[in-house]
Each structure stands twice: as structure tokens, then as C-alpha cells.
């Protein structure tokens, strides 16, 4: 318990100090996007802790973004309030979506979330009068505290990472205690969990709503940070990438959200920065190919995600393990 707390505190210190090590606006933007992706991915990992997979996460991200952007832009409400409202409303939407879909068997649930994502994206493109259509929505107000703008990358950095850490802590807590055990039991066997009195459908719903709220919160922050939104960052493709972040990080570990989002984003940036240096005349096509190959390699070497992979590696490197000796009764 206390060690975990200490770890979080250390992480918080590291995050707080990072802008002093790497202070360019561009790097801060990269970190900010990692922060936003971390929150979205944490939602997926929460969902994954009960064994569910969603291909609609970007749609909830988008609902948060569009909801908050529209309320603040067209009604003039404070972005802080609209982020909260959009998050709550998106959670409500998730509830309504969950009522029929959570009863579906595994693959059909994935299909349903995929369908939901496509429906939301179609609405973003199609409701031109409200959403600005495919051309997007401009002039979204930025965030301010007591008249001071948080538009600057560094100010936003502290905001988004503060929230990301809080999200991490909450997710960590949800997956420990009674709720976490129930979720992992559902992951192991819905039948076995139900036989012990775990209200399977209620837990699945709670965690689905929470994951949507995570995404929507990040979406609201995104809208007031970039201050321009269009349907494409909330497409099926984006949902897929959030899922990749979650799986690469490791669906069974909350820290996978942070490390998956960070690794995938950084990988993307490093390939972008390094490939042209090695092959000066090539363009994005090589980057896509290399990215794909690296993704395959990561998954082959860390099939349970990089967090689990790093832990296993650590265990191997330690000469005398603290775990009780195995094999006594095997």
C-alpha cells in the first residue's frame, strides 16, 4: 500500500520535473498528447480488467470533445463546466449503449462498440449545422484559471498530467479492493463470478461507464487544448490505436495505460524523427511500414504487454527471488 503510494508520489515528482529537462513547445505537446492518450487508454484497461474489449473508445473521446466544445463555444459556458457536463453526459450515453450491448457475447460486443463508433462518426460528419461537418469546428475557447490562460503548453501539461495521475490512482483503486477482485473474477469466468454472488452485468456496466467517462474527460481537455476538432481523430482508426496502446501496455495492469500510451506515441515520434535521418529521401510510407514491423516485434516479445514483460524480465534478472520456492508439490 504505502509503497504503491510512494511510487505514485515519485512518478508525480518525475512528471513535475520533466518540463525542466525537455522544455521545447513541441516536446511538451508530445507529452500532453501522451497524457491525454493515457487517460483514454486507462479507460480501456479498466474495461479490459473485466475481460471486455471495445473498438468504440475514440467515439466516447469524441463525444467528450464535441460536447464540451459545442457547449462552451455556442452557449458561452465555462470550459471547466462544459468538460464536466460532457463527461457526465457521455457516461450517460455509455449507460444507454451498455444496456443492450453488454449482454452480447464477446465478439458481438466488439462489433457493437465498433458500430457505435461508426454511428457517432457519421453523426459528426453529417450534422453539419451543429458539428461543422467534416471540415471541423474552429474557435473553441481555451481553458483559463482566474483569468490566466492555460493555453500555454506548460500550463496545460500540469493540468493534463495532474488529471492523468488522478485517473491512474482511481483506476488503481478500482482494480484493487473488492471491485477489482470482482472484475478479475469476471475476466476469469463470468459463470464462476456469478456463482459467488458477483453481479456480473452490474460490474460490467459500471466499468464500461467509467471507461467512457475517462475517454470523455480526455476528449474535453483535447478540444480546449488544440482548439480545433474534426471527426478524424475520433474515427475507428483512432479507436484501434487506443486499443493498441492498451494491449501494448498490457491489459492486465493499470500501469499499462501510461506505458502503452507513452511507448506508442514516442515510437511514432522517434520513427518520424529518425527514419528521415537514416534514409534522407524517403517519406511517410517507410514510417508506416517500420511502425507496423515494430508493433509486431513488440507483441512477439512482450505478448502480455510491456509492463508485464518488464516485470518478468526484472524477475529473471534478480538472482534470488523473494517468492516462495516453486515446484514443491507440483
Amino acid at each position, binding site marked *: 500500500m504505502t509503497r504503491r503510494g510512494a511510487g505514485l508520489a515519485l512518478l508525480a515528482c*518525475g512528471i513535475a520535473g520533466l518540463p525542466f529537462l525537455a522544455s521545447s513547445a513541441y516536446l511538451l505537446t508530445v507529452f500532453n498528447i501522451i497524457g491525454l492518450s493515457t487517460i483514454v487508454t486507462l479507460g480501456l484497461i479498466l474495461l479490459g480488467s473485466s475481460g471486455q474489449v471495445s473498438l468504440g473508445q475514440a467515439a466516447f473521446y469524441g463525444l467528450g470533445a464535441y460536447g464540451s466544445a459545442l457547449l462552451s463555444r455556442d452557449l458561452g459556458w465555462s470550459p471547466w463546466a462544459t468538460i464536466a457536463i460532457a463527461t457526465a453526459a457521455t457516461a450517460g450515453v455509455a449507460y444507454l449503449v451498455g444496456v443492450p450491448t453488454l449482454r452480447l457475447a464477446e465478439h458481438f460486443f466488439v462489433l457493437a462498440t465498433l458500430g457505435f463508433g461508426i454511428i457517432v462518426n457519421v453523426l459528426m460528419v453529417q450534422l453539419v449545422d451543429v458539428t461543422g461537418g467534416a471540415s471541423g469546428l474552429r474557435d473553441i475557447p481555451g481553458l483559463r484559471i482566474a483569468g490566466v490562460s492555460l493555453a500555454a503548453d506548460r500550463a496545460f501539461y500540469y493540468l493534463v498530467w495532474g488529471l492523468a495521475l488522478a485517473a491512474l490512482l482511481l483506476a488503481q483503486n478500482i482494480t484493487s479492493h473488492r471491485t477489482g477482485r470482482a472484475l478479475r473474477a469476471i475476466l476469469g469466468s463470468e459463470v464462476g463470478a456469478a456463482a459467488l454472488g458477483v453481479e456480473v452485468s452490474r460490474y460490467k456496466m459500471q466499468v464500461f461507464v467509467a471507461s467512457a467517462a475517462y475517454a470523455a474527460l480526455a476528449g474535453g481537455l483535447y478540444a480546449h487544448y488544440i482548439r480545433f476538432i474534426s471527426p478524424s481523430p475520433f474515427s475507428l482508426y483512432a479507436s484501434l490505436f487506443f486499443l493498441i496502446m492498451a494491449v501494448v501496455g498490457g491489459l492486465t495492469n493499470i500501469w499499462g495505460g501510461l506505458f502503452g500510451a507513452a511507448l506508442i506515441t514516442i515510437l511514432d515520434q522517434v520513427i518520424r524523427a529518425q527514419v528521415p535521418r537514416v534514409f534522407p529521401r524517403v*517519406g511517410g510510407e517507410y514510417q508506416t511500414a517500420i511502425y507496423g514491423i515494430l508493433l509486431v516485434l513488440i507483441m512477439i516479445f512482450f505478448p502480455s504487454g510491456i509492463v508485464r514483460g518488464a516485470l518478468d524480465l526484472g524477475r529473471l534478472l534478480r538472482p534470488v527471488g523473494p517468492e516462495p520456492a516453486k515446484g514443491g508439490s507440483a
Partner: protein
Amino acid sequence: MTARPLSRRLIILAAAAAGTAGLLAPAPPAGGQGAPIKIGTVFAVTGPASSLGKPEKDTATMLQSQLQSAGGIGGRPVQIISYDSETDPTKAVLLIKKAVTEDNAVAVVGGTTSPESQAMADYAMAAEVPFMSVAASTTLSVPTRAWVFQTPQRNATAAAKALEYLVAIHAKTFAFLYRNDDFGQDGLVALRTYGLHQGVALVDAEPFAATDTDLSVQVARARVKNPDAMVVWSTPPTASIAAKNIRQLGIRAPILESHGIANRAFIQLAGPAAEGVVFPAGKLLVAGRLPAGDPQKALLEKYASDFEAANRYAASTFGGHAYDGITMLADALRHVGPDKARIREYLEHVRGFIGTGGTFNMSPQDHNGLGTRDMVLVVIKNGAWDLWK
């Protein structure tokens, strides 16, 4: 039991952070008096708009070597930095930021699609850096924004040119089949509005998705309204599928397409259905058939042959938009040097600049500087492009 690996996690995190900082840091600029002037470019080399972004990026690469062999600008080398936005506005913003803050680019060319350009334009305004958009959305330069310029003929301009054809063939009604994205939606608004003014009525509008594989349903719905002309606003392959489906369903009305079909692929995919299709375009496609006195003729022929020599595929108008943006910037650098505010000032007063897209006449009220006179109507005849008379 989860406590122990914590230290390891933190080590990994620290390593990752340090690694990021190290790997993402820009290469040290070539020092000394010959420090390069940098122009940033951000094109959608991959993703849905790659057929536009790829020639744009290849044009930038070609211009880089041309500028290099010309000895740079004002004795200083010029470096054109290329980034791929993957047709994603968020990445486009990230990359324009990178170009400006990491690479110290004095100006940025790019934004293949309108959403990318819009997102980049907002950043350019905030960071006060000249931005040459290569997207065609009308709203990019109407109303004018101080730091945002646009090199393609606006969608509204193309639509106005297209309408000249409908008026010339005395069409009273037309059906509009469009790809349901910013390109198609922009065209719909422009053609409907202009048509209203010129007595050509829109009788049916049918959207479709970029990934659609067959459009005969949309065509069949349009056929019910019996329009005088069929207008299609998209790029291949859907633009070709639409033309094929129109002919397959036995519709004989003339087909008018958009400037989005200005590449060979349209003709190949549409086959016989391409015959007689008319579309508005920059003069690049018909450079060889322009009268000798046309001011753009020499430039267009040079660009096309240079591009084909460098890239083994035919030049397109999209690459031309990048060409115009970069050469106009080079021109500005030659006259005022690498100063953002002075570049902006210079660009705003460009007059008579001959580019692939037309003769640019900028002003504080018009950051595009092109009009319908810079476009031509092209007809596909015997599988080749020709000027429509």
C-alpha cells in the same frame, strides 16, 4: 507483492523520458555562416489523402535539391523539412509546432486536407508564422487571416468554373453526387449557391463514403429526378466508380466532375465511361495544348518534366500547390530574408507571381489571389485530356 517492481517501473519511465528527450531533439544545425534557412512542410503522405500528399511531398523533395544546386538563397543554404501528418489534424498541429519550435522554420507549407489546414492555421495565427495551406477549402482564406495563405484554387473558384460549363451547355438542372467529407460538402454548398444565381437548379444531392465500392444506388436515386447534367465531386476511385455507374445505368446526360480527378488514374479506372467527362482544373494537365502566349505554359512544362524525371510518375496539380507555396516562399526569402513578419508582409503583396495554379495576385483582402481565369475546363477525349471549348 506488486510493490517491488515499482522501482523498475520508475527506471523505465525515467529511461523513456530521457530517451524521448534525446531522440526527439533536433539535429544540431549546420553551424557557421552557412546556417540553413528552414522551411517546414507537413503533408498527408499516408492516410486517406495520400494520393494528394505524396506528390506534394515529392515536389518538396525535388525543390530541395533544385534549391541546393542553385546555391541556396542569398548565399545561405535552404533546408526543406518534410513531415507526414498521416491525414490526421492532431498530428498536423503537432508537426507544425515541431517545425516551428524545434527546427526554427521561418514558414510552413502544408495541410493537405482542410481539417489539417484548419488546425495548422490556428496554430500559425497563435505562433505568428507564415503558413501556406495547400488545401482548397474556401474557409481557409475567406475571411482572410493575417498569417494564413492558400495556394490551390479555392473550392468555390473551382465550383464557379465548373458552373461555367453547366451554363454553356444550357443545363437547367443538375444532380450532385459527392464524397461526404470536407471536399464534397464544400463543393455542394458552392455549386448550389452559384447555381441559384445563374439559373441552374440542384435537384438532387447524394452523398457517399470514400470507401464505397459501388454507387449505383446513389445514381439510381438521382436518375429519378431526370437532371440535365450529372455532377460528381470526389477523387478516384469513387469519382471513377460514379462515372462508370452513371453510364451503366444508361444515363446519357453529360458528366461534370471536380478538379479532384486531375490524374491519370481517373481515366484508367473509369475506362470508356471517362469519355466526354468535363472538369475544371489548373492548367497543368493541358500545358502542352495551351496557346504559346500563355504566361504559365513554360513553367508548367518545366514543372511537369522535372517532376516526372525525379519521381517516375506523372505530375499532378496537387504537387503543383506545394510547388507554388514553396517557390513563393523562396521568392519572399530572396527579397526580404528569413524574417517571419517581413515574409508575411511580402506574401500579402505578391502580384503577378506565375505559379502552376495560376497567376497569383495577393492582397490584404485576398490571401489566395487566384480566380476562375486561372482555371480551364478540361474534357477527356480518347483517353487523354484536352481543353474544352
